[in-house]
């Protein structure tokens, strides 16, 4: 009776021992994975911080201004001057009535093959 019980107990303890060891190794494995992941996150955060710093440098006005100046000639750009600003108030109001006489003469001219825009373009020197 007691002998059988002992045998059962021995087998159970061996099984449990095996179980505990498996668990131990599994946990060690997970811990290793975790450590590796933490290290990876850490290094990625490190590179991310460098990238963010790079981005911040590249978007600084102090970084962009010299580039703009370097290409000012090629792109034909310059700081805005006061005269370049316009406002809605500066736009002429629409005439009360369409100028039908002027429209008629325009259409007759177009039909005759003369486009007034050509004369303006020629005057401005644009082909």
């Amino acid at each position, binding site marked *: 009776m007691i002998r059988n019980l002992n045998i059962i107990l021995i087998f159970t303890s061996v099984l449990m021992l095996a179980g505990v060891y498996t668990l131990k190794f599994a946990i060690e494995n997970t811990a290793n994975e975790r450590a590796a992941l933490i290290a990876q996150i*850490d290094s990625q*955060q*490190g590179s991310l*911080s*460098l990238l*963010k*710093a790079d*981005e*911040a*440098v590249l*978007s*600084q*006005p*102090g*970084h962009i*201004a010299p580039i703009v100046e370097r290409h000012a000639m090629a792109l034909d750009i310059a*700081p*805005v001057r*006061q005269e370049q*600003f316009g*406002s809605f108030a500066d736009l002429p109001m629409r005439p009360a009535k369409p100028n039908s006489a002027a429209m008629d003469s325009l259409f007759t001219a177009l039909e005759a093959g003369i486009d007034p825009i050509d004369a303006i373009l020629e005057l401005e020197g644009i082909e």
Partner: protein
Amino acid sequence: MAITADGHAPTIALDGARKVRGNLTQARIRWMILALVLGFGLVGGRLVQLGLVETDSAIEGQARDVITATRPPILDRNGLEMAVDIRVPSLFAEPRRIIDVQEAVRKLRTVLPDLSADWLRERLTGEQGFVWVQRELSPAIQERVMRLGIPGIDFITESKRFYPGMNEASHILGSTNIDNRGIAGIERHMDGEDIALLQDLGLARGNALTPVDLSVDMRVQHVMHEQLVDALQRYSAIAAAGVMLDIHTGEVIALASLPDFDPNQPATALVKDSFNRITAGIFEPGSIFKTVTMAGALDSGAVRITDSFDARFGIRFGRYTIDDFHGKHRILSLPEVYKYSSNIGTIRVMQAMGKDNFRAFLTRIGLDTRVPFELPEMRLPTVPKELSEVGAATASFGHGLSVSPLHMVTAYAAFVNGGNYIAPTLYKRDLATAQAQYRRVISPQASDEVRYLMRLNALEGSGSQMNKAALGYRVGGKTGTAEKVVDGRYSSSKVTNFFGSAFPLDNPRYAMIIMVDEPKAENAQQGTTAGWNAGTVTGRIVQRVAPMLGVAPDFAEILDENLVPPAIR
């Protein structure tokens, strides 16, 4: 067994085999228990001993996580980074684990030849658990050191502060030391506030922190810095500085002082003369102080905008006579006194107000106390407690007292925003919060009149050079050319020039002070007075930044006419 003497047959008592075995087993069990108790006692004792050992995770006296502590990023008002944390590897050694010091020194010096061999040998010898070898290295060097495979040499990732704007906002940001603690500027102020507390509580370690929003606009800051650098060179000046405020909220939009330093290399901040002239420099403000006198006198009601003052003769105080720089020597109306920057007229205005009232007004606009401001680099102004007759006379045109440019810009902001004093700040502040802190210093009517005077001076007076550059942006301002004291006398060749301005004056939003120290004339046709340098710098800055700040040019003359007070229209 006992043998007795009286001949009785001795009683032999023999224990049965079973009993003997039983006794033996009991003895064995006792020994076993003793052995077990001893064994467990040993284990328990060792556990207690191990529990009592304090693990030393400190790095040269500092907790390890303080080293890797992060600081919150600092953003400008548009969300552009002004300061960020980057992770950098730092090289450390554990001397007690180094086997061959000589070899370690030789190998390390192949990668880091700058280290002295003797210093390194001394550093690596001993029983310490941790010593720094070199901090804040590049990842490439880390890779090469790891390849050497020296035992007892390793890296730890540290947070390092990086300022992408380089020099541009150096005096605002300040800098941090190698342990990532703020040592100057807003960085130091942040440490004094909540960050230090958070770090002490262990909350601000390694976590992403909420960014700090500053009121500064990096675009405007860039333009101001660029123009000041240009001014320094153009006028061969020894220093230049500028500050711009939002007059309604007191937010600092830009603040620069040259010569400056690179916050990425904190050592450069120790160079002489690179102090923050806006907050930590105090100067005799010169004629820009006349705006203060005018504002105070107009507010007190002692003078009106229509009054006239006798500026025919200099004013005598004992042996001294105070006269005008470009004297008209006639009766001047109050706007003319301001326009021609008449010392005599300004003294008369001050005298009409009374010197004690004038002194009290200086206190009211905070010119004799520290400006409440975040930067730790501040200096107290020197304003005499009591003004004598002659002291009050010179003070009325900005001599005999010294204040910082920050004092002046705060006063100018109060004069043009309707008369409310608002303490400047480097943090974002909305209008409602600011309005709750308003303190009335002059009446709205006096504020309107000061606006008119400032605009008039730009149109017809000493600000015309400035106005030429910033045409259409309705800038108004006052020049100030303060002679420096050289060997106890005022020198006319060494001057500190100021220009105090505000724009757009029909609906003012920004106030600005520009300072150029000891300028020379740009060319023979120009002068060294403030209108030529500080004034034109102001004009060029406004011309560049006004569109960024949403101020469109308007050439309508009606805007200037509307500024004229009804009394003299």
